[in-house]
Structure formats: structure tokens, C-alpha cells
């Protein structure tokens, strides 16, 4: 078990290093930070002074090493546009994105799994056919379209939910949460829903396919032969065995949810990492762009490790395989 962890962690470090190089090279292609900070109407002297101050005149390898050195200590420099430490900016934005992504994940599982089970168990009914067709629509609707539709229905016409922002937040240490206030919860509903909708469809289809397979297996047939109640067979025998792939997919999905959160955050002005990243791109705010990409790489790697571990726990065969492969 430990060897898997060590191996996976080394992989993760390698991935993060590669991303850091790519992020750094990419940021030098995005645009000219000096032009972004000063505007194009700045004198050449101002530009030269600022370029020197930002150390843009040094070779990129030198700048990369000092960037990496800072990153290891958690120092990402100062945001060009906000003029605040990048670490602070990210830390302040992480709770909003995490709450949004996890809410969307829970929402998509809570809706998707029952739908999938239903569609598998009653696979010949017209309702489940309708569900599956509907899920295709769900997958293909872009998040921003769903978001705008929700806003016009629930904010403009019904006036029930706020169209933007996070509502009132409460600080618990450095973590600011919107989950403890009424306005915070109301503000969370639409962004989480618009983010969850495409995932619901995905989960439902996956659960259905897995269930159909499991329902054909011998032990389910035997359980039926033993005269167990269909409800018990479906939920505790069949569903439990479909959950293993669902765990993996959920992990990867969480990564997608964080990534797609950018779109939902832009539509709902949700003050999370995605919105910060979009603004940073527009302003060529290099320290923020680089730090965000590093954080994303770290996050994806961490999810992968956790998913691998869960997999190993759930499926002993895998543990053996990896152990053999590593020796």
C-alpha cells in the first residue's frame, strides 16, 4: 500500500514539475505584462523601468528557477493587477470554488444514481427511454446556456434566487463559507445546478450501463432464485458492485467540475478561482496565471492519488498487480 502511495506521489511531483515549466513558458506567450499593466499609452522609459523591476529582462530559465524556488515556499509573488500577494488571492478564492464543485458533485450523484438505477431496473419502460434521451440533451447543453436559462427563470421571472455572487459568507478561520447563511445557500443553488446538469446525465448513463451488466451476473440470478426481494437485490447487491467505477469517475469528475467551474463562475460572478483566472488572463497577470495552473496540476494529481488508493482498497486484485509491477 505504502509503495503505491510513494510511487504515485513521485508521479504527481513529476506531473507538477512538467506543468510548472509549461505554465511558465505559456505565460511568456500570452502577452506583454508591461503593456497590460501600464496600458499601451506608456512611455518607453516607464516600460523599461517596469520590465526591469519585474525582472522580465532576465532569461526565462533564471526567472523560472526563482519562480519554482518561491513556489516551493508557497510564495508566488504579487499579482500585477490586484497588487496583492498571489498566495492570499488564491487562498481567498479556494473555498468558493471548492464549495461549488463539491455541491455540484453531490447534486449530480444524488440525482444521477437513482436515475441510473431506475433506468436499468425498468429498462423497458417508456419513462427510462425518455430519461436516457433527456440525458443526451443534458450532456450536450453547454453550462453557460443552462446558467443563463436558470437565471432568467429563477431570478428575473420568479425572483426567487440571486443572479450573481455568493451571498453572505461566514468566516471559519481562513475558510469563508456560504453554507451557513440563508442567502449563501440560495446563491449556491443555480451555479451548482448548472454545473451538475451535464454530470447528472453522465452518472445516470454510467450507472445504468454498469447495473445492466451486474444484473446479468450469476450472483444476482442466484439471489433472485433464493427469492430475495427485488428491492434488496437491486440496491444492496447490484448497486454496491456498480459503485466501484462510480468512485473513479466521481474523482475524475471532481477535477472536471473544478475546471468547468470557470464557466459557471463567469456566468454567476461566483468569486472563485475560475473567475480569478479569467480576469488574470485578460490582464496578463502572469503570477496569478502561473500559480493557478500549478494549483490545478496539484489538485488533479491529488485527486488521482486518492482515486488510485480508493481503487486499491476496493479491489484487492489491483493491489497485487501494482505490488508485483513495482518490484
Amino acid at each position: 500500500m505504502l509503495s503505491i502511495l510513494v510511487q504515485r506521489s513521485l508521479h504527481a511531483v513529476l506531473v507538477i514539475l512538467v506543468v510548472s515549466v509549461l505554465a511558465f513558458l505559456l505565460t511568456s506567450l500570452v502577452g506583454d505584462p508591461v503593456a497590460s499593466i501600464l496600458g499601451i499609452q506608456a512611455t518607453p522609459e516607464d516600460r523599461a523601468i517596469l520590465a526591469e523591476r519585474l525582472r522580465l529582462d532576465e532569461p526565462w530559465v533564471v526567472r523560472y528557477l526563482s519562480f519554482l524556488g518561491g513556489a516551493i515556499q508557497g510564495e508566488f509573488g504579487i499579482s500585477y493587477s490586484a497588487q496583492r500577494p498571489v498566495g492570499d488571492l488564491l487562498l481567498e478564492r479556494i473555498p468558493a470554488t471548492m464549495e461549488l464543485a463539491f455541491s455540484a458533485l453531490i447534486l449530480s450523484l444524488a440525482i444521477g444514481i437513482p436515475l441510473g438505477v431506475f433506468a436499468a431496473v425498468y429498462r423497458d419502460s417508456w419513462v427510462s427511454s425518455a430519461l436516457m434521451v433527456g440525458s443526451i440533451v443534458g450532456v450536450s447543453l453547454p453550462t453557460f446556456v443552462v446558467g443563463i436559462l436558470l437565471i432568467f427563470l429563477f431570478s428575473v421571472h420568479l425572483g426567487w434566487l440571486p443572479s450573481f455572487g455568493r451571498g453572505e459568507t461566514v468566516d471559519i478561520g481562513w475558510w469563508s463559507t456560504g453554507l451557513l447563511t440563508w442567502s449563501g445557500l440560495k446563491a449556491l443553488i443555480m451555479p451548482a445546478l448548472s454545473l451538475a446538469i451535464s454530470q447528472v446525465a453522465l452518472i445516470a448513463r454510467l450507472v445504468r450501463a454498469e447495473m445492466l451488466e451486474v444484473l446479468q451476473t450469476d450472483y444476482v440470478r442466484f439471489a433472485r432464485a433464493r427469492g430475495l426481494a427485488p428491492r434488496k437485490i437491486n440496491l444492496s447487491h447490484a448497486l454496491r458492485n456498480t459503485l466501484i467505477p462510480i468512485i473513479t469517475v466521481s474523482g475524475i469528475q471532481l477535477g472536471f467540475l473544478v475546471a468547468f467551474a470557470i464557466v459557471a463562475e463567469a456566468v454567476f460572478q461566483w468569486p472563485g478561482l475560475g473567475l480569478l483566472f479569467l480576469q488574470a488572463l485578460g490582464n496578463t497577470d502572469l503570477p496569478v496565471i502561473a500559480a493557478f495552473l500549478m494549483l490545478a496540476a496539484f489538485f488533479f494529481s491529488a485527486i488521482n492519488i486518492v482515486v488510485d488508493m480508493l481503487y486499491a482498497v476496493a479491489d484487492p486484485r489491483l493491489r497485487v498487480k501494482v505490488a508485483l509491477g513495482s518490484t
Partner: protein
Amino acid sequence: MLKHTIMATATAVALAMAAPASAETLRFAGTTPALTMDPHATNDFVTTAIFRQVYDSVVGLSLDMELVPSIATSWEYLGDNTWRFHIREGVTFHDGTPLTAEDVAFSIMRQKDSRFYTSLFGDVAEATAVDDQTVDVVSNNPDPILPRKMSRMFVMSRAWLEANDSLEIPDLGAEGAEGFTVRNANGTGPMALTEHDPSVRTSFVRNEDYWGDFPGNVDEAVYSPIGSGPTRVAALLSGEVQLIIDLPLQDVERLENTDGFHVEQEPQLLFMQLEMDGTRDVALDTWTNDGEPITDNPFRDVRVRQAIAHAVDADLIVDRVMRGDARVVGIPSVPGFGGYQADLDQPWGYDADAARALLAEAGYPDGFITQLNCPLERYVNTEEICRAVAGMLDRVGIEVRVNGMVWPEFARMLVNGPTSSFHLIGNGANSFDSQDTFTATMMTRDADANEGFFNWALYSNETVDQVSRELPVTFDEARREELYRMGMEAARDTISAVYLHQPMITWGMQDTVEAPIRGDATLTLQNVTIGE
């Protein structure tokens, strides 16, 4: 646990308690957040419009963008590159301390130290408080428009900055903690800052001790950035905000037809223009009709420039692309800029036949192929404008390939080159005086001498150069008028660029809200009234 909303500075709490019970609160939204509350640390125009509520500039701006007394009640030129400003008596900062001439002089020097924005303020050498009510500003060269530049110079309290360890501007590229002035403010303006959370909201409360007029009835105001256009409109329609800055053009008609809302428009102090290579021997990204790289520069021929000016139908672009929300421009200046000449402002007029004849005369009867570099954001509907221009030029034989570029890429092409022979760009003036347009965007480009640095297409004309040299050292008003006219006529005749239009600032608001738009796109909270 601490609720964000009850966080406020002691000053603000005191002010808030002084406010009457039936407080009128204006909630308004714009595109981007106010980055910082330090007025000397940025030139971002959204941010400037926000901190203008809190900080007063040395010289004020009326709703028509005319210079009016503010912190300085009057000013005069003493000769010897020295301007004298007389400072208003009895002005206090929001923390209750009186404003002194010392604070004004200090603020000018603090801004100057930033070294980032000498383009805004020219080369001020020294600002000194002569006595309690007088400040002398000395520049390295004569500067007739220094008072206009002072309308962007904001006054901070020296004692307050000292007490909070912020005498220097929070520095870019520096390490360490966040500067105090990023989230906190202590100005003399009509509103005092209660809370500034850069990512979420900026809140104000009325300054009961404001020295100036406060015709409106706003007691509190909250600004929220909402980047997505449709969401911003939805927030207005649902009543979550009462006013939005920057209403998307496609929503103008719809909002006007919705009960309870109205749209306000005002021309922006910026005009769009097509710049054409005026100097190079061989035009960049330009080909002959057979697709061979061209060996000369057609744009250098004034007849080709005139042909393009006649071929592009600016009226049609305003009608169709801008949906009427723009004003056609005929000289390199707009109303509200110092030096604007109303009688000269005559567009060239659309005339495709004349354009074809001019092209033939210039030796391009079959036209040529060229690339139009087009910034995709920053200005309104640029991509559509570029496509319309391409279609119009195609009709006279010039095949245009539109090269859309995101803004950072476009900006880099200009400041690190410039390497463009034909592009669309917005032209403003840092200090809202046409003198800037001449010296910065039309004078023959000599980057080392800092002449015509923003003349991205290398336009060059002797008369314009002469005007650009003489204006900055001419204090006589009559002579200045003469120079402005001379320069603008020359620029128009030689097509310094194809001037297109002035986009509109477009705001949407509830019918109960009356808010005048100032040309610099600033919402002046003291002039806002909220009715029943």
C-alpha cells in the same frame, strides 16, 4: 465567526450612524472589479471611476468634462514652468483631519514617485507648499495643459498614510504583505469607503461633511462587478441592482421596451480609427492581386488613403454594427476634448466611385490584398467593425484579410514593434486634450525622443509635426486655437487615419433612478437621485 457585512472602519460606522433612518441605497454593477483603492497605484479606468467617489482630484471635472474648482479653487501660470494652485479652505478628510496644502504637494510627489504613469502627468519636477493655501508645481518643460492633467491627480492625507505605513505606493513585483491602501481609503470626496473586497463588492456611505455640492440623495452605495453581460442585465431586471454600467448593445432595445427601466447614453471620450502605414517602404502583410508579396507601400500614397476613407461607410457601420449607438467622427478629436473644433468635424463621406478612381490614379486600378489587424476585445463590437470594413473595401478592389487578435497579443504587437501596416484601434487622450492626440498619436514617431510614441502606423506630416512641437509650449489661447485648427485640417486632408465613430457609454437603470453620465464613464454618486 465574523460576518463580512459588519466589517467596517471606525470612520464608516460613525458616518453611517449619522445617516438618516430612511437611507437611500444605490446598488450598481459594472464589468470589472475595482482593483485597488490606492488612487496612485493604477490607471485602470473602471477602478479610477470607483475611487473618484472617495478621493477628490486637485482640479475637478464638471459633468461636461470642463475643468472646475475642486481641492484647488483657482490656478495660474507663473512662468518659469511653474503653475500655482490655490487650495480650498475648510476641507476635511473622512477621518476628520483638515486637508492642507502640504497634503496636496505630498500627493503629487507620491504619484510622481510611482514612475509608472509619467505619461499621465508629464514630467513634474517638484510640488511644494508655499504656504497653507498655496501649492506650486514645477515641471521640467513648459506645460500649458498641466491643470487638465491635475484632474486625474488625487489627494491623500499624508498623516494617515504615515500612520498606516503607506507613504509609498504598494509596489509591483515587491514581496511581502498587502499594502494598507489597497482596501482602505481616507479621502475628501462625496462618499466615504466602508468596505472594499476587491473580488466581490465596494461599499460607500455619504460623506456628511462634503465641501462641495451634493444634489443627489444617495446615502449609501454598493458596487458589484458582474463580468457576464447577460447576468448583469438579469441582475438589473430582477431588481438586485438598480443601475448597470455597460449595458450590452443587443439589450438596449429590449430594456427600453421593458416597463420600469430606461437607458442612458453619452458619447465616450474615445474614437475608433483605422490606422494605415505612413512611412515604411514596403507595407507589412500586404500582397499584390496575384498573392505575391508587395514591393511597395500603397498606404503611403495619400490617394490610396483617401480612397480607403471614401470606401469605408462610417454611417453604415454606426447604423448596422453599432445599432445606432455611436457618433460618426470627422476629425481626430471629439466634443469634450480640449481643442475640439466643431465646424471642422465633417466626415469624408462614402463614395465608392471616387475611391475606385483614386485607386486607379495611384496605380492600383485592381486594388491589392492586405491584412487588417483587429483587436477582439477592449472596444465595442470590433470584430464586426473589421468585417464590415473588409466588405466595404472589397467593393473597391482591396481584398482585406481580417486578423483577429486577443488584446494582450494586439498590445504586444504594437508596443514591441509596432509591426502593423493596417489596424483598427481606439484613440483617446490621456489628459482629454487634443494636444495629447497630436504629440502622442500623430507626430512623426521617434521613440527615443518620446515623440509620437503611440503613432503605431508611423503616420508622418510636416504641419502636424509643427503643431505638435508648438502646442506644448504655447500658453496663448488664441494661438493654441489656431494651432489646433491647423493640425486637424492637415490631419484630415492627409488622412492621418480613417476616423470611424465614437462609441456610446450605455447604462441601464430603473425608472426611479436618475444618474447623469460623465464623458469619462464615471458615475458621480453625488449627482444620483433615487425616487419613489
